[in-house]
């Protein structure tokens, strides 16, 4: 795999420097999984030593089943045109993550958004608490346990006139007298 030489090199460098797991996803994509305490040192190392000077993206994925948030830092190097994805997981309870807006100014925007949308705290983060929402007093909305449909139905006016709608499967079972057992209902058509 000669064409992945740059990718393998950077992966090896970071692996040896920080003892972390990682893989080459495909051409121009290297992925690293690290503990949250290592994140800022890896980012600094990549930025200063390997010219990953462009912060592409910071994203958060809610793995509610595992009780964890996954935070991905995506950085890009203009010299090799390579993208490095650094993944870390933090606990959902009292979620806290290191603030990196001293490394990249624009990280501030991402972190403010994550603070608002997921309730992740970034100690030392400056900027107003309200970024997108206004007077929001429910749980941070991007958390997976926040039910947006339920909230919208409750909060906003539902225009009447559609109450006569019928569910096809229900209507058919009514016609035939079929009784779908409870354990099978999870396989019925999504509504």
């Amino acid at each position, binding site marked *: 795999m000669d064409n992945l030489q740059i990718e393998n090199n950077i992966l090896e460098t970071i692996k040896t420097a920080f003892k972390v797991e990682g893989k080459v996803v495909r051409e121009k994509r290297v992925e690293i999984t690290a503990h949250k305490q290592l994140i800022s040192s890896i980012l600094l190392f990549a930025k200063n030593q390997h010219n990953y000077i462009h912060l592409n993206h910071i994203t958060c994925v809610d793995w509610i089943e595992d009780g964890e948030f996954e935070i991905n830092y995506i950085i890009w190097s203009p010299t090799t045109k390579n993208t490095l994805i650094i993944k870390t997981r933090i606990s959902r309870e009292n979620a806290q993550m290191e603030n990196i807006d001293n490394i990249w100014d*624009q990280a501030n*925007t991402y972190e403010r958004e994550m603070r608002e949308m997921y309730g992740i705290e970034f100690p030392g983060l400056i900027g107003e608490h309200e970024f997108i929402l206004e007077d929001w007093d429910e749980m941070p909305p991007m958390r997976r346990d926040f039910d*947006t449909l339920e909230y919208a139905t409750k909060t906003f006016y539902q225009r009447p006139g559609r109450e006569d709608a019928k569910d096809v499967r229900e209507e058919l079972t009514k016609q035939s007298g079929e009784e779908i057992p409870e354990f099978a209902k999870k396989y019925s058509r999504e509504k």
Partner: protein
Amino acid sequence: MEKETTLYIGPQHPGITGNMMVKLKVTGDTISSASTHVGYLHRAFEKLIERRNWLQSFTILCRFCVPEPDPMELTYARAVEEIEGREVPERAEYIRTIVMELARIQSFMLWYGGQSGSSGLYLVGQWSVGDRNYILDLFEDLTGGRVYHMYIWPGGVRRDLPEGWKDKALKTMDYLEKRLDEYDKLMFDSTIFQKRAQGVGIIPKDKAIEWGVVGAPLRGTGIKHDVRIDEPYCAYDKLNFIVPTQEGGDVWARALVRRQEIRQSISIIRQALDKMPAGEFYNKIPNPMKWSIPAGSAWVKTESVRGEVGFYVESDGSNKPRRVHVKGAAYTHGVTVLEKILVGQNIADVSFILNSLGVCPPEIER
């Protein structure tokens, strides 16, 4: 020393590119600090996508950015294809290229209107936005929709080119090429525009990449970076085009870059129409309600008019996406970059600079 006052521009302001607000601290006419306030267009797309399946998401995604919906569709489609490993027929790749470039042209035409309008040259807007309708007509014939096309979906494109479309497209390109010269006379040759644009809103070359500047503003500082070249997608690696750059980093340089890019786009469309192979245009997906995608994630970038659009898509193996996170160019341009380069500028230049950065507020808050 003069007194510092706070000034709010937006959300209801004719010069703002959309529905957002810039809060300025001004001393006299000069801005001493600026901060962007968004959220007026927040629709919680990323939350809504959690409730929709892989195909349903594609119709909602194009609404991320109103002036240019197609790069969103394409990026999502590419991300899904990457996770699932779905092949795209070659013809579809060419059609996608054409759609992307048409989208680029129509967005540039809108930009012509905004950029010149914010410096008082309203006629250019009348012309370019009027002529933009011809591109929208092409879109309508191709996709069935004028603004929201919902045309590029995972696996290819929705419909093949209709009969006679190729000739119509070529004719429109010829017409546009002629019109572009007319716009030049009105806009780029105009002393008013030159004086307004030169030396305003400078992005320093040495900081540009670190600040997160992408797209035309980055190329306006003399740095040649374009996703179409760096990580070719669709059929871009089979077509000849140049990525124009300008030195200076000011509004003028950005305008010149765009002026050249629109001509490149016309050339790309001509080449793509010429080289397009026959064959399938769609690698059909299974029943959308039961279509699930293996667990995995992808980070995919596309070059849109305003810069690079990135999608982070995560699948947990079910029939709905776990997470789709969009990063548009405006996310950095409209907040940190804008806040930085507004310092020291005139109040009158705010909307001018906003237009030149291509800030699209729905892209920031989604």
